[in-house]
């Protein structure tokens, strides 16, 4: 008997009184959860459903709903449903469990245990509707001094900086992991909003050279698409050492996602697997990193800041300090909640540390060592909303990077199946039938709306604190109080408890 031990996660509910058997759901679902029965009736196979809501959203009769499958295992606090199901999967396939997006486990969310301050009486709050409120941010190394000539003009220019209209950038997402249209939407939005998008490790398609002034191009361990032209068509270059969703391991873009355009952009053969090694094979030590940083600076004539991106791991403060000394202009710290197109589930759910703690300890460490001014810090990995942004900056970041939030703005429903390449929303897929579902202009407008909404909210929060320029929030931990945090957590975050 060929018994399948896996049971459906979701159940598709079809209101037969509303369903007119039009078959749009059958046509649309890339996971083939809907089909025509022998009797030409539209039916559903719940076992294939990933709960991405695409059929629900597109059903002209609103006849569909999806729920968590009511099937329950006998209650066991230790052998939970997911623990049991993971074993079934591995026992049947013998493979590593794969997943997409960031960890969905119940780890503490420090953002939600930190509260912001506001002015009352002794200090007037500032109304952003009536007063200027400034969010412009500069990322890059800052000199300790500024030399002026006798007429008070600059004797020498500042080292290269990234200038952001709001302290948010898009995090690295490669063409390959996401679709051409999704990539284009990010590029357009970054360009219009005065921020930056990041190529991830998939190279920069020539079509997007027009957005080069807002591109951070990534040099990762696979070196896909890296050449002189690529480095030149950028605002800054990022060396990716690691990412929060899968610290310490490499990447794998399956050959079926490597179509013609991806293959050209990545400079790899059509249909071949794109495998990024776990480490850079020319970086086995901090001095090797320094060499690569300066090789890139030489290649770009010191006109572009160099970023180094690392995953937030246990020893992140010391590592960050080394990266500053190695000559990086900007450090990106990616917390353990960061998303990804594909990661082994066990790695995603068990490796790394929360970004809130990482930012606080890195900022503190660099200040203690007197080198904080040499570098800007981008907090990345699981930034959900504008208050997370404000808290990250008050904890010591200069700006944040968002990716999951950006994908959600474009329509992602967090089904965590990016690695299948079957994204119904046309975001993390290369299937031409699916990618055309995402209109890059509309998607970029949604991204712009999100950025605008966040910047309005950030301005309200700043105004409430009596601050009218974002630089006065930076590292201003006095604006934060913890709730329900223990002594150690408060100490690491460098904040007092609410009521203190």
């Amino acid at each position, binding site marked *: 008997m060929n018994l399948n031990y896996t049971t459906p996660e979701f159940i598709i509910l079809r209101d037969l009184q509303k369903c007119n058997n039009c078959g749009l759901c059958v046509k649309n679902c890339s996971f083939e959860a809907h089909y025509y029965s022998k009797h030409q009736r539209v039916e559903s196979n719940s076992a294939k459903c990933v709960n991405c809501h695409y059929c629900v959203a597109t059903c002209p009769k609103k006849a569909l709903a999806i729920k968590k499958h009511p099937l329950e295992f006998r209650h066991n606090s230790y052998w939970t449903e997911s623990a049991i199901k993971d074993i079934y999967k591995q026992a049947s396939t013998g493979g590593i469990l794969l997943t997409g997006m960031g960890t969905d486990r119940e780890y503490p969310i420090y953002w939600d245990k930190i509260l912001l301050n506001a002015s009352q009486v002794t200090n007037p709050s500032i109304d952003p509707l009536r007063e*200027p409120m400034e969010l412009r941010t500069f990322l890059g190394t800052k000199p300790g001094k500024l030399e002026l000539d006798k007429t008070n003009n600059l004797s020498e220019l500042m080292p290269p*900086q990234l200038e952001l209209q709001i302290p948010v950038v898009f995090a690295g997402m490669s063409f390959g992991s996401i679709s051409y249209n999704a990539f284009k939407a990010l590029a357009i939005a970054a360009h219009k909003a005065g921020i930056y998008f990041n190529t991830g490790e998939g190279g920069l398609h020539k079509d997007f050279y027009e957005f080069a002034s807002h591109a951070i191009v990534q040099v990762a361990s696979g070196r896909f698409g890296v050449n002189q032209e690529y480095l030149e068509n950028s605002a800054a270059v990022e060396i990716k050492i690691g990412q929060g969703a899968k610290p310490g391991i490499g990447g794998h873009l399956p050959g079926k996602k490597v179509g013609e355009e991806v293959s050209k952009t990545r400079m790899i053969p059509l249909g071949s697997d794109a495998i990024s090694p776990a480490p850079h094979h020319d970086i086995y030590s901090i001095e090797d990193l320094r060499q690569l940083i300066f090789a890139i600076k030489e290649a770009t004539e010191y006109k572009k800041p160099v970023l180094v991106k690392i995953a937030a791991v246990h020893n992140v403060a010391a590592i960050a300090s080394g990266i500053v000394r190695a000559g990086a202009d900007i450090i990106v710290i990616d917390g353990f909640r960061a998303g990804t197109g594909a990661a082994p589930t066990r790695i995603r759910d068990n490796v790394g540390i929360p970004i809130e703690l990482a930012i606080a300890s890195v900022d503190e460490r660099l200040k203690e060592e007197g080198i904080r001014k040499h570098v800007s810090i981008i907090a990345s990995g699981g930034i959900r909303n504008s208050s997370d942004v404000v808290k990250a900056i008050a904890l010591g970041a200069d700006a944040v990077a968002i990716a999951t939030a950006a994908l959600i703005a474009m329509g992602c429903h967090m089904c965590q199946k990016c690695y299948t390449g079957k994204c119904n929303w046309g975001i993390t897929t290369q299937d031409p039938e699916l990618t055309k579902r995402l209109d890059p202009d509309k998607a970029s407008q949604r991204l712009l709306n999100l950025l605008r909404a966040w910047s309005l909210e950030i301005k309200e929060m700043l105004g409430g604190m009596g601050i009218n320029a974002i630089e006065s929030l930076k*590292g201003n931990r*006095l604006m934060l109080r913890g709730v329900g945090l223990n002594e150690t957590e408060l100490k690491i975050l460098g904040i007092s408890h609410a009521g203190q």
Partner: protein
Amino acid sequence: MLKREGQIRIPSGCAISGVMDKKGRPFSGATIINSISVMRERSNGLGGGFAAYGIYPEFKDTTAFHVFFDDKIAQGELENQLKKYFKVIYKEAIPIRRVPSIKNVPIIMRYFVTPKIEKIYQTNLSEEDYIIKFVFNVNTHIEGAFIVSSGKNMGVFKAVGYPEDVGEFYKLETYYGHIWSAHGRFPTNTPGWWGGAHPFNLLNWSVIHNGELSSYGSNREYLKQHGYQCNLQTDTEVVVYLFDLLYRKCNLPLDIVCKVLAPPLWDEINRMPKNKQQLYKSLRAIFGQALLNGPFSIIISTNEGLIALNDRIKLRPLVAAEKGDMLFIASEESAIRAVCYQPDKVWHPRGGEPVIGLVETSIRSNINLKEASS
């Protein structure tokens, strides 16, 4: 027991006043006392103080330490330290007269000292940094001793009380100086400690301040990186240190320092000519964390002059006036008119636009000050 200032942060509102003679001619402290007394409503008797420049001409080349002691033990400890690092030229108790409203009087001393050359050599510091280090050390580590001021030919006189009572207490009408500033404080709770009153001083810099810095946390972190210990947890303290850092250490001209503390808005910068755009962009990018945010009006004084500055959107009052060689700055016009009959010019400086008044003597020849602007 109530926590002392330094253990907690105490917001306060205030009255400020400053008077100077640009020709450097000394005048009695009675003027500034009269000026600040008009604004009694703006303080609540929990802090008042004065900074006076040019008052010790006979000791003008020595550093004058004004010090508060809780007891003789602290005094002994400080004097031991002083002897180790400095040559004490002269010391005395600062003369006071009893005033009923001034209570809990500490031991108040002044010491005129010069650093021991051999010690400076050993530390490899400049004379200024040597003195700063000593001041930080005393104020952080010697319990019950607090160095109130540490400049040359100047001194700070402060106490818990209304400023006019503090002036009377210290017999300030008997001192003659060419620059004076005064402060009346309205703290939101009871500090009960004399050190918390304004002015705050470091070397020749004194600051009086009306307002609360919402950027305090950010400014403090910035200063910490540059070796300044903010041990009083007051906003005013960071202003002093920022001036010292930007002006003395980073060597920026005074008007540029003011533009770092209260920079032009981006809208304004965008309209500037290219070279100025580059300058202000760089200033904001590099010194962003030195920006003073939140409501403030401050008067910074040195031996060379007065600088008055408002926050960028003028959330606290500040009025300036001129008559002949005299420059007057105050929270309210009444405080100026009380001591200046028919001023030549009275104006309300705009937010972020400093009033810089400088003494026209050889004192300022060794520094590259821009000419006074208003």
